[in-house]
């Protein structure tokens, strides 16, 4: 087995931009089968490898295609060209608490969310105490989650996701949840996570966070790979690019 956790091989993803879209049956029949569309390549010909145990950052300006690429990594979108190989079990965390049912209790939602993220009932049961402990929800665990404060909601969601313990975790800026103390706690959890040989891929806008957490970074610019490699080098280049664009 190679020591790459993820191999991204010449991945491209296009979206159709509809000028006139046949969203209703009437439009489809009136205009015939053709709807007028233009292709927009959100990600073009991107290749890189993520080594095992790395914390890998994806950076770039708004609209650079990093979220699209992340969604491809999370298997939500499928690349039109190229391929992504994951060596190991992957889980993604693009939004915390997605799939929570507001009327169900925290406990029921932990099991539901755990299985959405790919855990078996047994696995959730064995980690249940840890999950509750980490989230700090405490005695509210048997209350319906709609009564939770937004902080409790995201903390519980995050806690479930981090306890899935996949080989590869794909994360989208979710570190920005909870208060300062919880942020610190979750960062520690990430460090612990990568130390045990697992891989994290994350998208973030905060360069400070990238420098602090990532050891490898890929910089995307208008859908293309601008640079990839050591975190400090690439973020410096990126910072220079931002300064140049800003002035």
């Amino acid at each position: 087995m190679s020591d790459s956790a993820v191999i991204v091989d010449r991945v491209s993803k296009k979206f159709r931009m509809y000028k006139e879209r046949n969203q209703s049956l009437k439009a489809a029949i009136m205009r015939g089968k053709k709807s007028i569309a233009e292709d927009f390549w959100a990600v073009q010909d991107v290749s890189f490898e993520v080594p095992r145990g790395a914390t890998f950052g994806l950076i770039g300006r708004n609209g650079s295609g990093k979220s699209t690429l992340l969604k491809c990594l999370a298997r939500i979108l499928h690349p039109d060209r190229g391929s992504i190989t994951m060596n190991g079990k992957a889980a993604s965390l693009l939004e915390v608490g997605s799939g929570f049912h507001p009327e169900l209790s925290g406990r029921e939602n932990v099991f539901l969310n755990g299985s959405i993220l790919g855990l078996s009932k047994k696995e959730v049961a064995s980690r249940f105490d840890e999950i509750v402990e980490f989230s700090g929800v405490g005695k509210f665990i048997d209350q319906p989650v709609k009564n939770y404060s937004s902080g409790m909601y995201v903390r519980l969601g995050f806690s479930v996701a981090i306890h899935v313990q996949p080989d590869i975790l794909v994360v989208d800026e979710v570190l920005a949840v909870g208060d300062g103390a919880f942020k610190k706690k979750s960062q520690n959890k990430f460090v612990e996570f990568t130390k045990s040989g697992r891989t994290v891929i994350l998208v973030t806008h905060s360069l400070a966070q990238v420098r602090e957490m990532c050891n490898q970074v890929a910089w995307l610019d208008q859908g293309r790979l601008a640079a990839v490699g050591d975190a400090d080098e690439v973020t410096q280049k990126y910072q220079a690019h931002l300064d140049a664009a800003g002035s």
Partner: protein
Amino acid sequence: MAYLKELLASRELLANLTMREVSGKYRRTVLGQLWSLINPIVLMLVYTVVFSFIFRARPAEGDPSGLNLYPLWLMCGLLPWLYFTRVVNGGLTSIVSNANLIKKVYFPRMHLPLSVALSTGVTWAMELGVLALALTIFGGMPLPFLPLLILWMVLLALFASGLAMMLAILNVHFRDTQHFVALILQMWMYLTPIIYPISLVREGAEQYGMWIIDVYRLNPMERFVEVFRNILYDNRLPAWDDALWCVGWAGVIFGLGYMIFQRNEKRLAELL
């Protein structure tokens, strides 16, 4: 094949999604799951008054059960029909209404329509349980037919979810689908011998041409309703041709729905 494997591997998710539907639906209602029984009972009363007392629909006596009660006869056909429409309506909107989940997490999307079929099946099983009890009290013997009943529930579930899966994909492209289907289902119900006996159609056909009955019986739900009545109301084995039609419809429609859904699944997140 790989997809089937993935579906099976994540069957616990299907169980949990089903649980979410079942226990989330009647939270914070005083009557809880009883609500799922109230709806068919009210329908039963309305149809009985209108079609038994006013229009004087007279279904044949149950043979060999000897039952002769319009409300019970009605329910033996109406409950399967209600299940069918709930699965088609619920399954067809399951993708659009879970757009948030689909855009944020990967899991085999087929679990969404399938969980509708299962969770509705839980309600349906309770309804049929109450009906079976009533049938027994009034002198029927549905109990020995339980294995056959379960088999036919599975067949109807396959037929309904196959149709729901096809329509769910279509609904992502054209949101008209859900409104259009609601309309079609209403007409479909009156084209199926649920509130009136098929003997009325046969009488009409004898007068105007026998082709009418042949066309009429192409309706898959006609066969299903017939078999459910055989099992529950008449307490006898269904006719061979009816049974084969049901198996055929269930297999073909579920197979088609499965294929169509699986082919289109990958693009759902960007289409929503």
